[in-house]
């Protein structure tokens, strides 16, 4: 096809077109490099000593050290980040599991065995995502304060579940509706009951989608700052709240700031690279395939 087309419509000058292609390839590489440069610089700085990190012009070739990371993990007598990392992991994993437990049956009711007016229900979920959570922050804070849930990690779990549930329902709905009806019918004719159908037919097809949904819920919960800042204190402090301690930090802690930011971003970077395509699909609420 392509071969016949090229002979049918010869381009003006092939070497020029190839040169143009190469130039655009280089431009793409350059753009990619520019976007990743700040992060590369952050990685480099995190391995420098504080003295080498705080020079102008910056030193690229300075000797490498793990001091920034040692400092971050509390070697220098600072607060240990471990409790906040454990809190973040707890809140993210627990809210992801709770989200899945609520979203899976809902998505099932909206796709495989649709209820009446299922699109309306789907849009109700979406509309909650579009209301800024900050507008509900005060009542939630007052409620938590009066019920003793302030500085309690489970309050964050509930809120993160509410934050992620609409996206999870939407994504899961789109993944479950990819299960061909014919297969389900065939299984029914063979006498399979609902649990068997769900486990043997639906689950294997929808599993990659369920995994991607979980990753996205995990990332959003891990990243969240505003609610964690307002609702957590000493006990329930999450990793992003721990990072707020660096907002006013002065020069001497540059390597430590970089090390801290990178360590805390690591789970998200790993999860995000693993699910690049699904991440876009999830963030665009399943509208983009």
């Amino acid at each position: 096809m392509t071969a016949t087309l090229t002979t049918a419509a010869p381009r003006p000058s092939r070497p020029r077109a190839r040169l143009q292609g190469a130039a655009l390839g280089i431009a793409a590489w350059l753009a990619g490099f520019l976007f990743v440069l700040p992060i590369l610089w952050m990685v480099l700085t995190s391995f420098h000593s504080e003295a080498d990190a705080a020079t102008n012009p910056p030193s690229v070739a300075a000797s490498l050290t793990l001091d920034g990371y040692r400092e971050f993990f509390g070697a220098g007598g600072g607060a240990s980040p471990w409790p906040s990392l454990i809190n973040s992991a707890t809140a993210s994993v627990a809210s992801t599991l709770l989200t899945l437990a609520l979203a899976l049956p809902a998505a099932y009711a909206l796709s495989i065995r649709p209820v009446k007016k299922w699109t309306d229900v789907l849009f109700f979920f979406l509309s909650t995502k579009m209301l800024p959570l900050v507008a509900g922050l005060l009542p939630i804070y007052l409620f938590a304060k009066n019920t003793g849930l302030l500085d309690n990690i489970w309050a964050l779990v509930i809120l993160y579940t509410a934050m992620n549930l609409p996206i999870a329902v939407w994504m899961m709905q789109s993944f479950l509706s990819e299960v061909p009806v014919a297969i389900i019918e065939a299984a029914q004719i063979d006498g399979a009951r609902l649990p068997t159908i769900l486990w043997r037919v639906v689950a294997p097809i929808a599993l990659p989608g369920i995994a991607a949904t979980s990753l996205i819920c995990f990332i959003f919960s891990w990243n969240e700052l505003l609610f964690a800042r307002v609702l957590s204190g000493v006990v329930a402090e999450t990793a992003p709240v721990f990072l707020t301690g660096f907002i006013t930090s002065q020069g001497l802690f540059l390597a430590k700031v970089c090390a801290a930011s990178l360590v805390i971003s690591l789970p998200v970077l790993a999860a995000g690279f693993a699910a690049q395509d699904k991440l876009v699909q999830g963030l665009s609420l399943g509208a983009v395939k």
Partner: protein
Amino acid sequence: MTVTTPPTRVAAASPRPAARRPNRMRAWATRAPLLPALIFMIVVTQLPFVATLVISFFDWNALYPDDRHFAGFANYSEVLSTPELRKSVWTTILLTATVVLVSLVLGLLLALLLDRRFRGRAAVRTMLIAPFLLVPIAAALLWKHVLFNPEYGLFNGILHWIGGDGAVQPDWISEMPLIAVEASLIWQWTPFMTLILLAGLQSRDPQLLEAARVDGANDWQVFVHMTLPHIRRYIELSVLLGSIYIVQNFDAVYTITSGGLGTANLPYTIYQTFYQAHENGLASAAGVIVVIGSIILATFALRVVSSLFRAEVSR
């Protein structure tokens, strides 16, 4: 059975009187899996909004709880007439519009570059997505301390390398605070725009493009008459989703400028009004205004998403 009945047919079928009871039970059995999620969402998200609405009509400072009284629309007129609060409305609009538009244009250019086949395309794609995957507050700290710092930040370091010892060394954050916040957000959100638009570009029909070329269309004509109309919905979708996320931004404003120097947007102002100034009524009124703005935005957003969604369902 009911499992395979499409929703339209369910809606059309009139229940026979004799079978009404089992039908109703079956309808509830169908609905049951949906209820936990629905009830959870209503309790956790809708009730607080109602509470916010109620509180917004009260003059209520948390430090003087006994002095709480109904104030009508006083909080609203105060929000709209206090210069700082009014400015934060404007800042929110400016910040959102600038970040969304600039990252849309950059994202489109990058998507067009990535749509071509070249050596290492997957690697460049991975490099581009990295800024989006940094935890937002980590990204804000990176810009504040590692890039913008006037004494040893990378930007001034590069100026130093280029211009020698006499190079200009601007203090980015205090000289251009809003641009500083916007730059960090544009850096984080351009990859998001790129990825959505790239999905749009790659869903074009390659045979149709070839046919246009055979007919003698040049690159620009193909872009304007074929590519743009095709990705229009993807552009709308990325603008609207970007707006929804960036209107709500808190991390970058909080970290880079702490809302100072005219960069306080509404989420930050609300946070400050009740968390530091303890003005519960005022904060709630500001919150309700954000909700009204978002409803306007969301009405458009839902329309766009639903048109994409219908195209999906009918396929």
